[in-house]
């Protein structure tokens, strides 16, 4: 369960995030939808506590993420934007490194790594160095190490960006599975179809503000647009510009 109340972030004179508030519930996939540069990544970075909001509150399962970032991080599994891997470590070593940092060790860690490798169907690549991995394979490794400590909340920053069709389907399948396990899944995207295909709840962000929040149906009603893409364009105030 994630609760965000009025967070704001400025870089110099640029306001990247300007009062964003929303809730993401357990057993639900919440989509953070917005055009490029809307403030999605900055919002997520504040949620997983590598950036501090200038003001506002972030609560992860009743933990104040601004005051106790590390405690919040133990409850979060994160796939950041551009998931950097270590090219000289194997997929399994990535999972184990992050698992150990979360305090898991021994047979418990081996067991967990095995489970994740099974779940993400990466048995063949598990003991190869990630240096030559394809984009899809790298995504799997980054996902696996994000989930190693069995987090209640999962944050995914544009997880399907640049993936081919099969890998995208695989990621969607995993996201649904995480929801069905009762987790709170929050994922960002600028792709309409992605969000409408997956999400139970959508938060639309434009220019650092939440412009709408609701189920896909609610958003259609709210804007009077049958098509979710038209609804998005209307909400994001993009009609003045070119087609996204």
């Amino acid at each position, binding site marked *: 369960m994630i609760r965000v109340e009025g967070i704001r972030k400025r870089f110099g004179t640029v306001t990247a995030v300007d009062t964003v508030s929303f809730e993401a519930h357990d057993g639900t996939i919440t989509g953070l939808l917005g055009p490029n540069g809307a403030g999605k990544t900055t919002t997520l970075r504040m949620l997983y506590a590598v950036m*501090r909001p200038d003001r506002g509150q972030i609560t992860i399962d009743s933990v104040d993420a601004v005051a106790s970032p590390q405690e919040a*991080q*133990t409850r979060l599994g994160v796939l950041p934007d551009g998931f*950097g891997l270590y090219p*000289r470590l194997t997929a399994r070593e990535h999972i184990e*490194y992050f698992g150990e*940092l979360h305090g898991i060790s021994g047979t418990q860690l081996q067991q967990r790594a095995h489970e994740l490798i099974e779940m993400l169907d990466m048995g063949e690549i598990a003991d190869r160095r990630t240096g030559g991995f394809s984009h899809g394979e790298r995504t799997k490794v980054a996902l696996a190490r994000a989930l190693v400590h069995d987090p209640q909340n999962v944050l995914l920053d544009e997880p399907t960006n640049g993936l081919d069709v099969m890998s995208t389907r695989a990621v969607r399948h995993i996201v649904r599975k995480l929801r069905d396990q009762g987790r709170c899944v929050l994922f960002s995207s600028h792709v309409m179809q992605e969000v409408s295909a997956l999400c139970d709840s959508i938060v639309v962000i434009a220019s650092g503000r939440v412009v709408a929040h609701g189920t896909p149906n609610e958003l259609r009603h709210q804007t009077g647009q049958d098509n979710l893409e038209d609804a998005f364009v209307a909400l994001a105030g993009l009609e003045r510009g070119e087609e996204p």
Partner: protein
Amino acid sequence: MTAGRSLRQIAIVLRKEVKDSLRDRRALWSIVFSMTIGPVLIGFMMNRVAAREHEAERVRIPVVGTENAPTLVEWLNQQAGVQVVAGPDDAEQAIRDRTEDVVVIVPKDFGERFRQSRPARLKIVVDNSRNDARPTTERVRRLLAQYSAEIGSLRLITRGISPVGVRPLDVEEVEVSTAQQRAAQILNFIPMFIIMAGFIGGMQIATDSTAGERERGSLEPLLVNPAARFVFVSGKWLAAALAAFVSVLVTTMLCANLPRFLPLEDMDIRFRIGREHLGGIIGAIGPMCLFTAALQAAVATLARSFKEAQTYMGVLILFPMIPGIMGALYPIGASAWMYFVPMLGPYVLLTNVLGGRDPGVAAYINSGIVSFIAAILLVKITAMLFSSERIIFAR
């Protein structure tokens, strides 16, 4: 977060960084190169000095017209290390072609003039622009002058005159730059090479795990793990310090084995690095490795890119070289204040240890504490940098 947990996490980060860098072939080779270059260079230079010394002592003198001066030839052959051989037909050409260092020419009228006690003319053909031939030509000149003086004295004695009267000056040459001293000067570079090995040995991990980690984009996911920033920085710092320390030990071991391959005893040089020195070397260099690794990590973290970090490392490496080169050329006496200067303190300690002098426990403690405190401060600064969003996201 308890201290125990933080320590465990530091160990986890350290282990990962060591494992990662051991798999980096190119970096590994550069470390191996840095560890061996010093001992190899020293060995090479020492061998040159020894060979030169050897050359000058054992001199082969080509003489044209040996039959014209049989007594002189016999006298020369009796001198230690001298061997007279028949000279080439064209002496000047042989010198120009560098097939000979020196050629002595005895003219046909040598014997006649000699018997008449007139100055018997001799020619030596040399190329004075050749430095490598100089020891040989000098030796030949001295031998001929010596022969001339001996014969002169004998002639005076037969005429009832004391030879002392015709020698108003008695010039004695004191050669300062003996081969032994030159060799000792080369050995003075050993402390510098040991310190440099520590510096270069830690460089790879210090830059790759900070600036490199950020450039690969793996820093952000790493920082999502629940650990304090000083935990990540400490793990990386200690990994770099460990690599530095291993490099120092390997270089020291190679230097310690140098005497096996060098004719040091022939040159009457006492040089030894043995087990009894090991404690002193570790005491001098161990804290320094902590300091250099912390300095490198801090500087690399400040750099905007991996490339920039490497450029800074190239500048930083000049610092350990300054006391090293100065010390090798103008041996510096140890003053108490030197132990309070990072880099300089360990260098002075090391020269003392290798020179067989005990700098005293206080010197170790002072130098060690200074290095350690400076290292901790730098790690704290780096941890602060790791908390700065500007640094983490390099914008």
